[in-house]
């Protein structure tokens, strides 16, 4: 029995449904390529309610989250979020997610859809010696992402607050079209945009979530807003250099290997995985995540070998065709000594060894695309 989100009816009527992490979700509505273009050029809306939402509150909530994640939760102010990872004792990544500080002793954490159960079990187990309450609220709160250079303009039409005052990774409780919501200036596309949490919208009675979705679509009409599916979501995040749990990061990969060192605050006293990560930082990660751009026509996919002088260096962990740069792009892992940008390698795609080059992230020209675009 597959699960459905609040917007299932819309997806079934307008989209091409597939199974993803136990949910029936739209892979695309119009098509992956036009949906990617809509987000990079204007605005798109994604239903991301298949992801988890957990509220962690109580006296020890800060200390607890600081113990189970690598980033510094104590540095967050109310109305701020950060990207973080949760590691096991070996420093392997259990999940990556955003942590939002909702109130002095309350945090909203958003696990990946496929890790809902795993994360909750882990959190509940580790919470035993802390005075915290963990509430799984995925079924009461819906979540959408509104992404693209016009995302703020669309949401501004249904809000009385000045949304331009919300900084990147900032959060605010606002009413959108008179519906109670929390929005954070975060996303999984590399573009400016918001993630919108609609409260009091139970799965069994999804009318509030549907009203929010429709309000955003209506007010986005003049910006040609497009509903976007999981296909576009995966391409956009890969173009932005962002990891997909299960592909680019797993329990066998550490944040240093994944080049996510910026979320590891070793200055924190104690957190799960700290010892292993301190050792790895001193020795240097043996293999690291790199970007790969095809120099010949062909689309690299997960599991393709990465070669140098006929030796296998590592494997591709995510690959796709990038409509923004019109070429095949990928992420994969190679030994550190081969990870320099500009390094030429080959990727074995369906039996052929095709030329590729190691690049940084994101893959697109940041003056033209992305939230820091200047043009």
């Amino acid at each position, binding site marked *: 029995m597959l699960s459905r989100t609040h917007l299932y009816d819309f997806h079934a009527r307008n989209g091409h449904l597939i199974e993803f992490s136990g949910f029936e979700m739209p892979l695309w509505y119009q098509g*992956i390529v036009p949906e990617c273009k809509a987000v990079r050029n204007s605005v798109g809306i994604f239903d991301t309610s298949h992801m988890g939402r957990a509220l962690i509150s109580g006296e020890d909530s800060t200390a607890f989250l600081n113990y189970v994640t690598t980033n510094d939760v104590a540095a967050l102010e109310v109305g701020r979020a950060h990207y973080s990872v949760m590691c096991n004792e070996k420093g392997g990544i259990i999940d990556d997610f955003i942590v939002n500080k909702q109130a002095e002793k309350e945090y909203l954490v958003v696990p990946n859809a496929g890790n809902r159960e795993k994360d909750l079990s882990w959190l509940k187990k580790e919470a035993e010696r802390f005075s915290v309450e963990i509430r799984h609220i995925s079924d009461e709160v819906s979540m959408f992402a509104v992404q693209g250079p016009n995302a703020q303009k669309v949401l501004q039409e249904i809000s009385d607050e000045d949304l331009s005052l919300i900084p990147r990774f900032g959060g605010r409780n606002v009413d959108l079209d008179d519906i109670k919501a929390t929005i954070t200036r975060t996303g999984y596309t590399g573009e400016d945009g918001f993630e919108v949490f609609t409260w009091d919208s139970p799965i069994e009675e999804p009318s509030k979530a549907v009203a929010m979705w429709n309000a955003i679509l209506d007010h986005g009409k003049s910006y040609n807003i497009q509903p976007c599916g999981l296909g576009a979501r995966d391409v956009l995040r890969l173009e932005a250099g962002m990891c997909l749990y299960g592909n680019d990061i797993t329990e066998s990969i550490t944040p240093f290997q994944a080049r996510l060192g910026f979320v590891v605050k070793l200055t924190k006293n104690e957190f799960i995985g700290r010892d292993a990560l301190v050792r790895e930082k001193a020795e240097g990660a043996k293999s690291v995540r790199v970007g790969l751009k095809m120099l010949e026509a062909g689309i690299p996919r997960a599991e393709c070998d990465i070669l140098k002088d006929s030796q296998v260096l590592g494997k591709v962990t995510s690959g*796709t*065709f990038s409509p923004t740069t019109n070429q095949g792009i990928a992420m994969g892992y190679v030994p550190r000594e081969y990870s320099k940008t500009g390094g030429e390698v080959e990727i074995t795609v369906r039996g052929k060894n095709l030329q590729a080059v190691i690049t940084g992230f994101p893959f697109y020209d940041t003056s033209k695309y992305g939230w820091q675009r200047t043009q």
Partner: protein
Amino acid sequence: MKVNNYEVPEGLYYTKEHEWVKLEGGNCRVGVSDYAQKSLHEVVFVDLPKVGVKIVRSQSLGSVESVKAVADVFAPISGEVTEANVKLADSPELVNQQPYGDGWIAIIKPSNLKAELKNLLDAKSYADFLRTQMK
């Protein structure tokens, strides 16, 4: 003819892997069917066979790829590839727009057409086959 909203032109031969064959003089023009291109959705890359390559029926001729999926194109007959549709390098979307026209993939000079024709489906048989796929 049409099966639901999938075009199945008469006068072509088909395979159960959704390739079509058009007999042109002594040669066979090959492509993928409307059902194949609709299932794949947006074609973004076509891996064409090399001209001069000798292939055996059912061997992979190349592939047609969407963002998310790769579909092998299997040789419907044995022979030699005499031409590949290089237009598909810049315009892979022709496979979606004109699967039976400008979206053709290769031309094969057959080595054993008379015998191998028996393995191909005519339009009506392919249409019947499609109906069973859609149940």
